[in-house]
């Protein structure tokens, strides 16, 4: 066993007198007690370095007999081993505790990550739900609007059906035609006007034409206009079921002499206009006041 001396702070020169022992040693250096051992400022470094004892310890050993020397050395060995074991224990404890703290932190961090992950997923699901809801809402709104539209259209179609029968009541139809012609003339304000009607309506028109012209002239305070009834081109006939194509349920079409200004006073045109103008009222009557109308 080789022990080396370390140049410790209080121990720079070789010491041969026990009076120069470092301050940390107590004065109890009598051979009877051995607590001196345990007051030694021994440094236990890593196993690469060597255990270091002050020189005066060797000096003391040198003065002893063999039996005592071996006892001293044994004690020193025991002492160094105990110190080393205690230090090793401390290191083990520190390591274990640090491991626990580290582990806890890692677990917490991972838990947090997982929690965040799930929060994110939850949010996604929420958003998707909202999107689906509003899509559904829109779809059903559209359906409602569509149904409303269909209803209105059906109503218009029904009105158009009824319109056909108007021209069957000859007396009233005649009166109507007269009023229509007057209105048309009033609109046009032309001295010379072309008139076109359905083929079957021609005789009605000719019946009431004179009266209409006079009425207009009177109302508008102008000379009686010239109205030329077109006997060549006619408005199409009433609609036939299953037959597409232009149709006319009655009424007249008036135009200026040169044909530039046209006044459509057919029943269909009038229905169309009436329909368009009254649509809001129609809707209100049918559906009541609704928030998204």
């Amino acid at each position, binding site marked *: 066993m080789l022990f080396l001396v370390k140049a410790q*702070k209080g121990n720079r020169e070789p010491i041969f007198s026990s009076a120069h022992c470092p301050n*940390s040693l*107590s004065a109890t250096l009598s051979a009877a007690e051995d*607590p001196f051992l*345990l*007051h030694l*400022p021994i*440094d236990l*470094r890593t196993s690469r370095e060597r255990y270091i004892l002050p020189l005066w310890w060797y000096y003391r050993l040198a003065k002893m007999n063999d039996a005592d020397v071996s006892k001293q050395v044994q004690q020193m060995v025991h002492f160094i081993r105990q*110190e080393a074991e*205690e*230090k090793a224990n*401390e*290191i083990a*404890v*520190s390591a*274990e*505790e640090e491991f626990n703290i580290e582990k806890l932190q890692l677990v917490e961090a991972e838990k947090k990550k997982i929690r965040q992950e799930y929060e994110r997923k939850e949010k996604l699901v929420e958003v998707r739900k909202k999107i689906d809801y509003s899509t559904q809402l829109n779809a059903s709104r559209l359906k409602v609007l569509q149904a409303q539209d269909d209803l209105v259209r059906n109503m218009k179609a029904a009105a158009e059906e009824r319109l056909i029968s108007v021209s069957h009541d000859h007396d009233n139809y005649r009166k109507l035609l007269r009023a229509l012609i007057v209105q048309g003339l009033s609109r046009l304000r032309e001295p010379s006007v072309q008139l076109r009607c359905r083929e079957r309506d021609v005789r009605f028109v000719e019946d009431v034409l004179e009266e209409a012209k006079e009425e207009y002239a009177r109302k508008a305070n102008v000379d009686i206009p010239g109205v030329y009834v077109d006997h060549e081109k006619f408005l199409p006939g009433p609609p036939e079921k299953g037959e597409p194509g232009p149709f006319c349920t009655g009424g007249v079409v008036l135009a200026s002499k040169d044909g530039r200004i046209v006044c459509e006073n057919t029943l269909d045109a009038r229905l169309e206009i009436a329909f368009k103008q009254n649509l809001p009222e129609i809707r209100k009557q049918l559906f009541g006041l609704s928030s998204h109308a």
Partner: protein
Amino acid sequence: MASEPELTTQIVLKRDIPWETYMTAKVINSTGLQLLRRYDRRPDNVQAALLDENGVSYVRVFVGILRDITKEDTVEYMLALIDDMLSANPKRARLFHDKALSSEDIYGPFLRLLAKKKWFIQETSCKVLTLIISARPSEDQVSEEHGSSSNGSQKQLSDNFDKTLSGVVDWLCTQLKNPSHPSRAIPTAVSSLATLFREYKVRALFVEARGVRSLVPLISPASKQEHIQLLYEATLSVWLLTFYDPATQAMADTRISSQLVEVVKSSTKEKVVRVALLSLKNLVKKDIFAHQLVACGMPKVIQNVRLQAWHDEDLLSALDELEGTLRDSVKELNSWDRYKQEVCSGNLDWTPVHKDQGFWRENIKKFEDNDYEVLRILIAVLENSRDPKTLAVACSDISQFIQNHPTGRGIISDLKAKSPVMRLMSNPDPDVAREALLCVQKILLSPKYVSFMQ
């Protein structure tokens, strides 16, 4: 029985126990007797070889004897035998946890023996039990070995273990409070605790049994050899406890901080200083202790320790960490918000804030906030409080304010603080009177005269 020489393991092992008579009494079986004859009174190397070969059976015999025989001599002998066996090689304690013994109660006999009157029996049982407990394999290993076989027996084992732990902890706490032996009980108990505290359940049991109060007083500077070892082990135990929160809470109202600081200041042994610093490092993370430590003058102590040039790297790193945490805590403790909190609570104390000149210089303007709100509260405290410490601190705070604020005197007079302070000059408590006097001095005299008086 002071005249009897103390029993030691060596003395006891010199006895001759007639094992044969026990066999005839059917207390030991023939295999047991055979093993005993082979092992007993043989030289160390023979015993070592026997144990290496078939340690478990020997352990079974030993435990059986302790369980079944009550004659004191024999019990002592057996304990001494086991003690000897474990001292020679502590790893042998693992034999007690061998699967083959899992159906037996390895702890029971020792636990029972702790209650005996004779100190030797108590001490050796404690030593042995501690070694056995600390050799217990960890939970994972236990479940690995026992596999899926009967969770019931595993539960039973762990229940038994818990019972043993609480039995041991109770015994140790009692020893700390009422030692069975004048000089050896406490060292034995502390030594045992230092080893057992590595087991977390023990820490919890110990704190619940209110052992902390008995342990803390042992931390005091020591010069004699035995005391140094005791101090080391006590400090080690405390360090282990500082990892457990309820323990640190229990320690908060002891004087552990100042005791540890004393130990650090005066110890010459590196290992003692090392564990003391490690404990302080853990404690300082909690505010209460940071506060106490600053009051003990810890920063100065840290400087001194550095001058002593210890070389252990763990010691030095603990010192550095301690210094860092302390500095941060102090900065936080000295913050303005803390001060304001303290004033508003109406209970003032000599926290470091009140004397720290840096604090006053930096924060003096903040007193003006809200129409001198804090000052008004301070004056209200002066008028209403009955607690002498609060009054003294309040007076000193007002003095500090006057000193550090350019127009302090004027403000204080405006706020009508003079009369309460003057009244306090005649307060029975000497500290209060002194602080009040100093304060009045500052109010009445202009600055240049004040410095003259100081």
